[in-house]
């Protein structure tokens, strides 16, 4: 593996999970979830707490992290999003409401960090979670495990959406909420489940991201533009596009910084955030609807033509 690749893959899987969770929520509830930032931070914080209080590797705590994220999603849905969806609120209002929720979560995570410091003498304001990782084939194990988890979750979600009855109902609601409601699907439950899944995904994404970058209580707040960039790059209308976009944003950042700092000079490090943003801007200028809007079928001729008939 090239030197940038291990960290890049870990970081990219974190971004893919969070971008995927943003996309999932957007296609079901029209909500741009700012709260992904603090949900991701909570994911990291819980993994860190588990590792430093009870030992073990961070992976052991991922199920717990998923459940905690789902709970945060549930609170957001029943406390906030449900009422606004019933009121048929505008997209901007939905977005702002999650921003308010995010600020509340951010303050609680900061208080929790203080609590950890004062009670357990832990210092969660500068954490290298990768110190608790183990080695696999001469690399950090996270570089193999986390992409597998990200892709595994995507596959599980794919199977859930295409093979199970509820998943098909969910897709029907995404396609046409009114018609789905008329045929007896309860949209309320669909929205609730998508908040649960997306909350869990973003929490795991945060824990994954903290394996590559320094974990702080404002980690999510600092990386939220890139999570959104991943979701937008993917086109916001396709779950697979969102996850692919997240992977691409993460990998471009690490690869770009590595090669550019070798070619131009190490000063490029300071502008690392610009590299994925340029990628996003270029993609949006060429394809205003993101990766999912690229006419893949046209590009690859009849490779996909059989599938296109299904739509």
């Amino acid at each position: 593996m090239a030197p940038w690749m291990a960290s890049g893959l870990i970081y990219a899987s974190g971004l893919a999970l969070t971008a995927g969770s943003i996309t999932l929520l957007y296609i079901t509830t029209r909500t741009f979830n700012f709260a992904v930032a603090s949900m991701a931070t909570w994911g990291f914080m819980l993994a860190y707490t588990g590792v430093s209080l009870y030992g073990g590797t961070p992976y052991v705590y991922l199920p717990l992290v998923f459940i905690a994220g789902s709970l945060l999603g549930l609170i957001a849905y029943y406390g906030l999003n449900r009422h606004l969806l019933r009121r048929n609120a505008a997209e901007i209002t939905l977005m702002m409401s999650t921003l308010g929720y995010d600020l509340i979560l951010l303050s609680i995570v900061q208080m929790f960090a203080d609590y950890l410091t004062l009670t357990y003498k832990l210092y969660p304001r500068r954490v290298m979670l990768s110190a608790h990782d183990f080695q696999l084939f001469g690399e950090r194990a996270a570089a193999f495990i986390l992409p597998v988890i990200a892709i595994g979750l995507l596959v599980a979600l794919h199977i859930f959406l295409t093979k199970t009855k509820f998943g098909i109902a969910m897709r029907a609601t995404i396609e046409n909420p009114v018609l789905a409601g008329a045929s007896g699907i309860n949209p309320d439950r669909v929205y609730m489940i998508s908040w649960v899944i997306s909350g869990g995904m973003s929490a795991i994404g945060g824990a994954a991201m903290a394996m590559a970058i320094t974990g702080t209580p404002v980690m999510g707040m600092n990386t939220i533009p890139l999570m959104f960039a991943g979701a937008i790059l993917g086109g916001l209308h396709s779950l697979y596009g969102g996850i692919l976009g997240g992977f691409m944003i993460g990998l471009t950042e690490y690869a770009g910084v590595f090669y550019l700092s070798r070619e131009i000079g190490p000063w490029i490090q300071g502008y690392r955030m610009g590299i994925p943003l340029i990628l996003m801007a270029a993609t949006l200028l060429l394809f205003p609807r993101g990766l999912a809007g690229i006419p893949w079928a046209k590009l690859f001729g009849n490779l996909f033509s059989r599938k296109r008939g299904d739509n």
Partner: protein
Amino acid sequence: MSAVAKTERKAPRLIGIRELVLLAIIIALLSFFIFSGREKTIWAIVFEFSIFAIITLSLNLETGFTGIPQFGRVAAVITGAFAVGALPGRLMAYIIGEPWGAEYANAVFNYRIVPVINELLASNIFYSIGFLLLCLFTAAVFGAAIGWLISRPAIRLKEAYLGISLLAFGDFFMWVGHNWNIMVGGSTPINVPDPFRIFGGDRFMAAVLVLFFIAIVIYIYLERLTKSPFGRNLKMIRDNEVSASAAGLDVVKVRTRSLVIGSAIAAMGGGLYVIYTGSIGAIGFQKLTFTFWPWAYMMLGGIGSNFGVLMGVMLLVILKTMIIVFRYDWFAFMVNVGIDPMWLEFTLMGAVIVLVILFVPHGLVPEKVEPVLPEERVKRVLAKRQLEKTSEPVS
């Protein structure tokens, strides 16, 4: 016809009961500070109010009146701050013959050059006023330029895409300022010449009064602008883009103008902030403070209502300051369970946004439905039309 008559009868009162109650609450809260012996805090409140009123009013022009989801407010604010931090001081350094190139942004030189400039500015009131105006002008020009740049993709992209792209680029601007040493010193803050030095010991009070004055001037300007035909164009585009363009409006042009004016005003806010604090450090311009808080102020006050925005900023700034000042007295019980009440202001801001959206979705002072013209003028215009009709028989 009945709709016209209805709006005619409801001539807008300048200040209604709602506004009076809000003003009373604000005065009560302010007097609370006076009675608890913290008069000086009021100056800090007025300072923060002035800066954020300017920024939030500009946000309201773009979001409330034009309907652009401006999640990158911090970009324009940063541009103004950098412009004021980098250029007028350099010009002064050039005039008095000090190094003004990359050395100016080097803390070692900067801490020596700026006091010299300050002495020069303090020697003559006209120098000070001229420098302040120069700063405002620089900020506005650069802000307008960045607003124009932002408006280019703003025309191509749709709502959510645009808001998120603006958010991302606002963050990127901060990192550019943080890393590009030769502009404003990068990670080491540099000083900015101080046009208020001439007031000596009363410097901070004088500065606060000037800032307050500028905020009020900008409020009056925006109030007039949004009531002008241009303001009605903005509202029309916000409410229905298709019908606006069908009525012959150039949507792209109007939107661009709104973004340019809004960004110029926000940049002036950023520039004034830098002048008041006397130093600039790029890392201080976080999206939390300069994008999300103005959004909270605007939502509390009422989207699309300039007076409401002023009220929203004032109320929240007072509440925030109260928490900052009294948190260790009022929330001492939290310390006992091992939690620092330092973060309560974030909780407050988040809770305000959530509660406002859930319970007062139109804000404290909602936007009023106003007739285009005052009642008498409408009558006059109608009478004139009637006259024209009768005097010009249809051939």
